[in-house]
């Protein structure tokens, strides 16, 4: 099966029902995409398929064949994507484990809506962060978008 990941083509010999996450992590050795729940609840495994955020732990690899898959490693060569830079500027990550997924979700949100409202952020950013970095995630997204948080105004 041919997979196109981060603009590279890989030939993998796997069962069609194997979740894309495990192909990415254990066959292609791209470890930035994380496993946390396995049931598409938390979003730690979020990658883009043709630009759409997908929870790869519950997405069979066969369904990704022939599509453009982007992982956190493919977002930029040198962590220069504005969202990555904003994540550093706002010191978003704590343990960092969920942040690949958070960043992929945020990039997808901004691609669709360059100036998201807080409601847009709430709707798009459904990934779980056990460390509780949501406040800074929101601030970083607003920073990139040039918008301000209305959510916090009483």
């Amino acid at each position, binding site marked *: 099966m041919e997979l196109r990941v981060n603009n590279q083509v890989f030939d993998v010999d796997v*069962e069609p029902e*194997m*979740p894309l996450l*495990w192909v990415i992590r*254990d*066959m292609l*050795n*791209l*470890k*930035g*995409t*994380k*496993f*946390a*729940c*396995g*049931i598409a*609840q*938390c979003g*730690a495994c979020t990658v883009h398929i043709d630009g759409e955020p997908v929870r790869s732990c519950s997405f069979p690899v066969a369904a990704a064949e022939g599509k453009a898959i982007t*992982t*956190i*490693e493919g*977002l*930029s060569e*040198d*962590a220069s994507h504005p969202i*990555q830079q904003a*994540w*550093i500027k706002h*010191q*978003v*990550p*704590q*343990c*960092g*484990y*969920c*942040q*690949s997924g958070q960043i992929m979700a945020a990039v997808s949100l901004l691609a669709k809506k360059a100036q998201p409202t807080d409601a847009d*952020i*709430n*709707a798009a*950013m*459904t*990934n*779980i*962060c*056990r*460390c*509780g*970095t*949501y*406040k*800074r*995630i*929101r601030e970083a997204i607003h920073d990139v978008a040039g918008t301000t948080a209305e*959510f*916090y105004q*009483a």
Partner: protein
Amino acid sequence: MNKSATNLSRRRFILSSAAVSGGFALGLNLPSKAQQANQSNDINIWVEIRPDDTVTIKYARCEMGQGSMTSAPQLVADELDCNWDQVRIEYVDVNEHVRMERAWGDMVTVGSQTIRNSQDYLRQAGASARAMLVAAAASEWGVPPSEISVANGVISHAASGRQSGFGALAAAAAAQPVPANVTLKDPADWHIIGQPFPRVDIPASVDGSQVYGIDTELPGMVYAAIASCPIFGGTVASFDASKASTRKGVIDIFTIDGNAVVVVADNWWRASKALQEVEIQWDANGNGDVSSEDILNVFRASLDATDAAPMPNNAGDADAALAGAQKVVEAEYFTPFLSHSPMEPMGATVRIDSDRVDIWASTQAPEGLVSELVNALGVPQESIYVHRVQAGGGFGRRGGSSDFARQAALIAAELPQGTPVKLLWTREEDTQHDFYRPLAMYRVKAGLDENNMISGWKARIASGSILNQMRGVPLRGGVDFTAAEGFTDLPYQIADQFQDFKLTPTHVPLGFWRTVGWSQTPFAREQFIDELAAAAGEDPYHFRLKHMAQDELSRHILVEVANAIGWDKPPPAGNFRGIATTEPYGSFTAAAVELSVNDAGVINIHRIIQGINTGHMVNPDNVSAQLEGATVWALTAAMWGEITLEEGRVQESNFHNYRMLRMSQMPEVETVLHATGGFWGGVGEPGQAPILPAFCNAIYAATGTRIRSLPLVHHGFSLA
């Protein structure tokens, strides 16, 4: 118990002897690294300076998002008077640490201890290295050391105009005698301590390059999935692997420790799928009927037990005071078992070779991994090599017990020598085989006199004991002080008090869960203070203050938080407030919550003020981040958190039924940071302590409903 003092003096001795003599007395060659290649210079075990002026500071503890991999080296760098830009941070090698009789002190990263318990020796290490650089410069320049100054990584002699960077003098400094005594700076002179430097580990967390235990990849590695007995204390009666063993990639299927079935395969997903097809018969060993209701009944009996252990701080005559009180208030509170659920599930990679054992695992206790492998494999501790990685959350799960390391070692022992095996738990395994935050019940009773001052206070705490159950540590006078923290030293002046502790063990494994006793005792204590204020018809903030006249530090942070939310001005119509104060982990924290609740019980949190006084504060931005995160942690537990049992099995399994707060529910959190000096308080855990009672007190203010048990979903509340 003078163990820590012994360790400290030993540590000081080793630091000195290693630097002075090359450590030959210990069979070690620390400075020889510099002599060999002239590329590095270990000034002491914490500080290495390279010819290019790079300062490498060693970090002994773990990093799991709490930030001390940055803040602990700030302590060294400040006394060293280098530039922060010169600093590189490296983990201490665990094997070297073991061989040097724990020269770097505690590695375990628990109890919000890293800064407060190592600040003294870390600052001394920096000051000592600085003094040795000064001595080297004085010797080389032929001037008295007292005329030499150091600032921003430059060593200067003003009179002669001579200057040097650190690198040029490092080799000479390493040869200087270690000063017997160093004077630490006045806090007013700190220039790196107190600065909000960006965390050094964050860049790797934004591009996927951060390495966690789960990311270990080794040549020839195989993968293991595990199913432990779903009933605590149960064992494997039998299993049928005939179907599973035919699946693609499966290498072996076996049991370990008699209580878990393991599938090893060439890929973790394949192992995991095959495991689902192993038919396992479990032996419940008598625990197969236990339900949460059974456990609650045991705890209810503990509240009435006549053999509870009195606490050492009891004073006066509580019964007499209560008998003479104008009003008496009594309430019982209940906090459930909780799971840690860090985002990275438990797991470890182990490789056993003929002469060494290597382990890669996310941990809070590198030495705990060593102990587990010694116990599991019977190998000497010097043969164990722990590879250090970031932990994908810890929250106490990876500190008290390293059960996952034992499992990985036992699995590796079943495989051909030299085969690395990566064990990874599913989320379900993680949720159902935790060491849970203890379930506890509290009964509190107090009186009010004619001036509405508290007159007589009694509290009964019923809880299991983490250390007693996990490690057989005996209770001191029958009291588990981690379960009782929050009640042992009240900030309120109450002359007549009697509190006691009833140990209530169950078969459910217990562990240190972020903020430990302080995650639950304030739910009872600080709500009960509100109940007393309500009985007195007084404002709960001012009712607290009038009982805190003698506790300046507790008062201080409470007042700052009340001022920050504007307590004495009414909130907008329809909004209500709650407040609470706590004294956890050497810090002082208080919180105020403003919310509204609609007729359907939907809670809308408008503001949360989180205040902390850490005494000295190393990295303020990180302190804010920890308070923000602790708020999410507390609200999650308040709204949804409970682990329940039916037929001996944990019912919750994954994030769909063990819910987490998400972005849309994240309230505004404003942090109020104070560093009044004079002490070193913890940071990672204290923020949580006041949130839960402040939140519940606000719900009471809004609805008149007093929350005496958690989680809130059982009281008809939800979060907007």
